[in-house]
Structures are given as C-alpha cells and as structure tokens.
C-alpha cells in the first residue's frame, strides 16, 4: 500500500508512526516494524521519501543492528532492512561521520554468532561495494581481513557472500577501466581506486585455496554453486581487472598441483589456468598456452577424472576463445597441431555428456578463430566433413539432453557453418537437407504440441537452418544451389508454428526473415500461407521477443517483395498501430515498429497515403515525448535515442516512398512538425551518432521529396543551418555522408 500511496504524497504519517514502534518493548513488534521499513525501502523510489525520514529510518535500522540488541530476529530484520535502505542513503554516505558509523556497524555485524545475520551483513557489504565503491577506501583493509576470515573459516553461505564482495569490486573496476579506455588521463565519473591491484598478493592465494573445495557432483548439477565455483569465477574477474600482474601469482599454484594424484588438485590447477586466460596480454599468455596445449590435450584423453576432463575441455575452449584468431601475432594453432586438436575434440565428444558439451564449446571457439580468415583456405578445411559428422552424431546421442549437450553441439555446428569458406560451402549445401530432414522428423513424431524437448529441438534446428540460409544466401553461386530447397524449407517452418513454444516460433520467424532476404521478390508465393503467422506474431504481446522479431521480419519481407506486399499492408498496419497503442506490449518493441512504418512506406510508395492519417499522429506524439530527456538516467536516454531513431527512420521511409509521386503534397502539412522535431533534437544536444545520422538524413529526404514548396520552411529551421554545418564537419563518415545528401537536396529545394 505504501508503494502506491507514498509517490502521491499520501499517508505522510506512515514512516513516523512506524518509527515510533522501534522503541517498544515486545521484540516481535520491533521485528515486524523493521521488516515493514525494509519492504517500504524495497518498494518505493528513494526520491519520494524526504531526507529527514531517511535519516530516521537509517538511525532505527542501525540501532536494530547494534550488538546491544539482544534479540537475533530483530537484528536480522534490521540488517535486511539496511540492505534495502542503502539506495536511500546517498546523503548519509557522503557524510564522513555517518558513513563511518554505518560501516562500523555493518563490519561488526559480519562477526555475529548467528549465521543468518553474518550472511545478511555480507550481503550489505556486497551492495555497498557496487553502490558506494568510491567511498570504500578507508575501510578496504578491514573488509579484506573480515572477508578473508569468512572465506577461510565460515560456513559456505557466508563465505560465498564474502567472495562475491570481491567479484563485485572487480565488476566496478572493470567498468571504470573500460571507461578510461586505456587512456589513464581520461576522466571517468568515478575514479579507479585499484583496490584489486593493491590486494592482489593476498587476494589471489585466498581464491586459489577455494578452488580445492570442489563438490563431487558439481559438473552434473545444473543448479550447483559452491565456494570453488565462486572462487574461480572471482579469479577470472581479478584477471580481467589487473591483466598481466596475476600471471606470476597463479603459475606456481598450477605447476604445483597440475600433476598431483588427487583429482581435486589437478582440477583446481586446470581451473585456475582456464580462469586467467581473459585479461592478461597475449604476449604474456602465448608462451604459457603453447607450452600447456599438449598437456591439456593429453589430459582430455587420459585423465581418469571426469571433473578434470570437464575443466580441461573448458580451458581449451578459453585458450581458443582468447588466444586464437587471425588478429593474433603468434598462432597457438599451427598446421602441425591442428589435426591433433581436432582429433582429440572429436574423440572427447564421445565422452560423458558434461565433458562432451565442453568439447563442443571448444570446437565452437576453434572454428570462430577462423571466421575472419576470408574465402582463403582454412586449416580446418581438411577436417570439415569429419567435424560436421561428429557434431551430428552428438545430436543423436540418447543422453544428448543432459548437460545442455545437444544445444552445445548445434551451437558449434552453427559456428562451423558461419566460418565456412568457398572450399567448404558445397558441404554446407549438403548439410541443408540433413537438417531439414531432422526438422521434418520432429514434426512427424510430435505427439503433443507442447512437448518441451521437441520444441527445444525444433528451435535449435530452425536456428541452424537460419545460419545455413544466411551463409549460403550471402554469395550468388551458393544461393543458387540452396534455392532448390526453398519451397520445402518454408513448408517446414510454417509447420513449426503449430507448436506452442515461443522459442521455436522466434527461431522459425528469424529463419523466415533470412529466407525472405535470400529469396527476394519470389518470396511472394509464400505470403498467402505465411501471412496468418505473421499476424499472429505481431499479436504476441506476451512473448514480446517473438513480436519484436516479427516486426523485423515484416521489414525483411517489405524489402524482398516491394510493392507486392501491398495486399497485406492493411492487416499489418492495423496490427502495428494496435501494438503501438497497447500498454501491455514491452516498450522495447515500439522503436522497431516505427522503423517498420518506414520499411512499408518505402516498399509501397504513395500507396502509404491511406495510412498517413493514422501513422502521422502516432509519430508526432511519440516525437514530442522523445524530444526531451532532461533528468533521465542512462537506460532511459538510450531508450529515448532508439525511439527517436525509429521515428526518424519512419519519416525517411515515408518521404522517400512518396518521392516523385503526384501525391507528394499530402506530406506538406506534416513538414513543419518534422522540422520542429529535428530542431528540438539539435537543441537538446543529447543525440547519439546513430540518431544524428538518421536525423540529418530525414532533413535531406524531406527537402528532396517536397522540393521548393518546403523551401521557405526549411530555410527557417535551425537544422538546415547549424545542425547541417556541424554534421558536414563530423568525424563520423556516415553522418558526413548523410549531411552531404541533405546539403544537395536542400540546395535544390531552395534554389527554385
């Protein structure tokens, strides 16, 4: 109720009356009060509670946490309330004395005899690490000491939170350092305090020790999360934060443990190695990886422990992900070792499901490394057939549904197809009917339309066909060969819509979009049957991803069919307009719907006339809403820019679609508003580059289509002067190109 009332300034006495409870004697009353305050802080936005109330809430909560509070339930409720109240405490954390006091109480609470209270106190520290990173310097040494003690001695649920504190600090520092972008003199909103770098020599041994505390069945249990997993994940984040400095601290641990008789030591050493492969420079890692590669390949074949093999296959995948590719100077994969690597991975795909899954993952990154090799011969070419065959065999394993194995095999197959070249393209052409047959079989064998595993498999097969279509459609000779399957493949996709799975629908829809692009105007023959599914997709508010993808596919179909889309436009436009007016539809779908108006208009030209009356007011009101972002947070600004881009793409498509038509003047009444919108965007000064490029393009499209009748209007606009001038001298060549276009079109419009 407070969540509804407080934002409307209702119930002003609530907080005061709750606070009057905290000094009452019965512990359950105090506990319930603190819980209620916690719920209120969780539910309402900090800006609807005034600072005086915030101060009083924090005072009550911190008093409840104090060791003088003898009742553990009350203390726990207080710690959990503080967790929720931290977002309210900006002002208090800026005051040294108040912050010192809160931090002292939180740190003391981590030593409580009650495990739930200790865990909740560490949760507060984790939340503080991300919310108040820049205030932590005076406390970091103490926090290191208490987290180290917890990791070493405390129960797992507490130790996990203590590790999470350091993972969270890594997240913060990675973000800050990314913002510096390697330029250390650059400004960032928050400076980096290099806490990880300073704690490195203590932090790394603490984390390495956790790696030896694996659970027996962690690789089989999808929901597993333990101290070894958390420790290794944190080690990986530390490596990303400090780069090269981590290597000498971890290598002795690896050397010490990698060949020990106890599987835990071998696994921990391998996991440590795999974890630090992202972050340090290739120069630092390449010699080590080259040296380790052979050892890893042997371990993957011969180690008696499945845990060790699982982590070894994963580590090989990480080696290929970060240290293999055409951009790297010294290749770790050479013609000399490529065959051995492929052989071992293929062999490993026959291992238990969790190991085979990681082998498929390694193959994914092995293939990815050759993605930019171009049409030239790839070292994988001689093994292409064997790899594809091995992956298909994996998909047929009876235990392929365990450990996400089947998904991993199809994902690897997709990447192998994406990275195929002229030499291997004929084999991809042959793969198409095989995957089609698989899809056909799942459709024939399907007993109920909601069989989850069947639906998942159909999704994977549609995904694979999408990748194949995109690959083969990208060059004329392979497209020609592929087109023999187009009718059959489309028939299969349409049958997938009979299932009730959103994922399968989404994958089929994406694949159809790729097919429309490859087929071009001939796609018209599928429209009669396809149209009802297109409409269904546009109506799918609940699974908004399906709706968003369908909107994109409408664009694909418009570009493929051009004016042949016309008979379907009444239905499509009706649905798109309904979508825009709906409060139920996820907001992320709305910008692509506006772009889609542009696609339709460009395809059907002046026939868009009958939709102007409906589409233009929608565009106009969205434009007004999106013109100003003042006070919005980063997410909102990003969304607003995507909305602006959608609106502008709609205007571009509409103006260009009407170009040269006798009905051009129908657009004249809308021109003042469009120019006003462009002016206000320019004045607002918060457009990103994409919006800038689209906006200046719209100016050109308007001038080009309306010509001299819009000349005086254009001349009055700021956009045609200052904005255009700025864009003409932009460093971004796309902005510059659009500006050149606008300049040309304007000069013609005003010269008459």
């Amino acid at each position, binding site marked *: 109720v407070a969540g509804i009332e407080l934002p409307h300034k209702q119930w002003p006495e609530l907080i005061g009356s709750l606070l009057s409870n905290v000094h009452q004697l019965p512990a359950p009353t105090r506990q319930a009060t603190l819980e209620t305050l916690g719920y209120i802080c969780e539910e309402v936005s900090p800006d609807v509670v005034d600072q005086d109330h915030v101060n009083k809430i924090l005072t009550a909560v911190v008093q409840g946490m104090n060791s003088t509070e003898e009742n553990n339930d009350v203390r726990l409720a207080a710690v959990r309330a503080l967790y929720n109240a931290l977002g309210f405490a900006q002002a208090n954390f800026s005051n040294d004395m108040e912050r010192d006091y809160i931090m002292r109480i939180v740190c003391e609470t981590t030593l409580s005899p009650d495990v739930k209270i200790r865990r909740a106190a560490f949760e507060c520290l984790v939340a503080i690490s991300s919310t108040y990173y820049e205030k932590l310097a005076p406390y970091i040494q103490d926090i290191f000491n208490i987290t180290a003690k917890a990791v070493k001695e405390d129960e797992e649920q507490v130790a*996990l939170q203590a590790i999470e504190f350091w993972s969270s600090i890594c997240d913060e520092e990675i973000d800050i350092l990314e913002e510096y972008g390697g330029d250390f003199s650059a400004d960032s909103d928050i400076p980096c305090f290099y806490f990880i770098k300073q704690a490195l020599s203590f932090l790394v041994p603490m984390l390495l020790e956790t790696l030896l505390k694996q659970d027996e069945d962690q690789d089989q249990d999808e929901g*597993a999360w333990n101290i070894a997993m958390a420790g290794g994940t944190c080690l990986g984040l530390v490596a990303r934060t400090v780069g090269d400095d981590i290597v000498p601290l971890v290598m002795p641990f690896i050397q010490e443990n990698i060949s020990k008789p106890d599987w835990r030591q071998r696994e921990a050493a391998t996991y440590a190695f795999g974890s630090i492969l992202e972050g340090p420079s290739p120069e630092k890692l390449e010699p080590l990886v080259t040296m380790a590669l052979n050892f890893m390949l042997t371990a993957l074949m011969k180690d008696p422990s499945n845990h060790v093999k*699982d982590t070894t296959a994963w580590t090989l995948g990480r080696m290929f992900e970060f240290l293999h590719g055409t951009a790297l100077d010294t290749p770790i994969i050479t013609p000399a070792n490529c065959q051995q690597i492929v052989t071992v991975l293929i062999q490993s795909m026959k291992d238990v499901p969790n190991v085979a899954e990681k082998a498929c993952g390694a193959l994914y990154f092995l293939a990815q490394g050759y993605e930019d090799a171009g049409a030239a011969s790839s070292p994988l070419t001689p093994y292409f057939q064997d790899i594809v065959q091995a992956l298909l065999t994996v998909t047929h394993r009876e235990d392929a549904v365990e450990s996400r194995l089947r998904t991993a095999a199809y994902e690897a197959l997709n990447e192998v197809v994406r990275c195929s070249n002229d030499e291997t393209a004929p084999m991809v052409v042959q793969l198409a009917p095989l995957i089609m047959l698989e899809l056909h079989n799942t459709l024939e064998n399907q007993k109920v339309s909601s069989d989850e595993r069947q639906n998942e498999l159909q999704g994977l097969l549609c995904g694979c066909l999408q990748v194949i279509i*995109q690959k083969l459609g990208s060059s004329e000779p392979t497209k020609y060969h592929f087109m023999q399957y187009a009718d059959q493949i489309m028939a299969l996709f349409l049958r997938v819509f009979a299932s009730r799975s959103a994922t399968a629908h989404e994958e089929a829809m994406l694949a159809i979009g790729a097919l429309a692009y490859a087929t071009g105007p001939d796609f018209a023959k599928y429209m009669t049957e396809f149209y009802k599914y297109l409409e269904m997709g546009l109506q799918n508010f609940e699974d908004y991803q399906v709706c968003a993808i369908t909107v994109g596919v409408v664009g694909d179909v418009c570009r493929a069919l051009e004016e042949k889309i016309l008979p379907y436009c009444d239905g499509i436009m009706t649905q798109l307009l309904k979508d825009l007016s709906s409060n139920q539809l996820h907001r992320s779908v709305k910008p692509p719907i506006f772009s889609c108006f542009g696609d339709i208009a460009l395809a059907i030209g002046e026939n868009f006339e009958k939709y102007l009356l409906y589409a233009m007011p929608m565009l106009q009101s969205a434009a007004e809403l999106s013109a100003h972002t003042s006070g919005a947070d980063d997410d909102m600004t990003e969304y607003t820019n995507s909305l602006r881009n959608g609106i502008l793409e709609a205007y571009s498509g509409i103006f*260009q679609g009407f170009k040269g038509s006798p009905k051009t003047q129908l657009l004249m009444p809308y021109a003042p508003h469009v120019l006003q919108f462009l002016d206000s965007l320019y004045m607002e000064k918060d457009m990103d580059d994409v919006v800038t490029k689209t906006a200046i*393009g719209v100016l050109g499209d308007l001038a*080009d289509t309306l010509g001299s009748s819009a000349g005086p209007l254009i001349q009055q606009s700021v956009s045609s002067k200052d904005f255009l001038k700025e864009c003409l001298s932009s460093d971004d060549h796309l902005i510059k190109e659009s500006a050149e276009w606008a300049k040309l079109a304007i000069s*013609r419009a005003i010269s008459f």
Partner: protein
Amino acid sequence: MAPHDLRRPFKRPLISDQEKRRQQSLLRQAQNRRDAQNHARFLASTALSLEQPHELEPE
C-alpha cells in the same frame, strides 16, 4: 526481502548462440534498411546532380 541470488555464469559463454543469432539478424536488417535508403537517395542524387550544374553555375 529474500536474499538475492548471487550465482554467476559458470563454464558457460556469457552470450548464447541464440542471442548471437538474434543480434546478427538485427544487424542484417539494419544494414538492409540502410542499403534500401541509400539506394533511394543515390537514385535521387544522381538525378539531382544531372540537373544541378546549370543551377549552381553562378556560384
């Protein structure tokens, strides 16, 4: 006020292949839209530049 789940991705890629397919489709669609738009503008600007020399000569 349930304790939050702190499980992080473990030995799995951060972006699934499904997400990658989705992103690649969006990129392809955006590229195709740009191409269609540029094509329309190219046709228009070719026509414009054929006419323009006469108009702009005084400059």
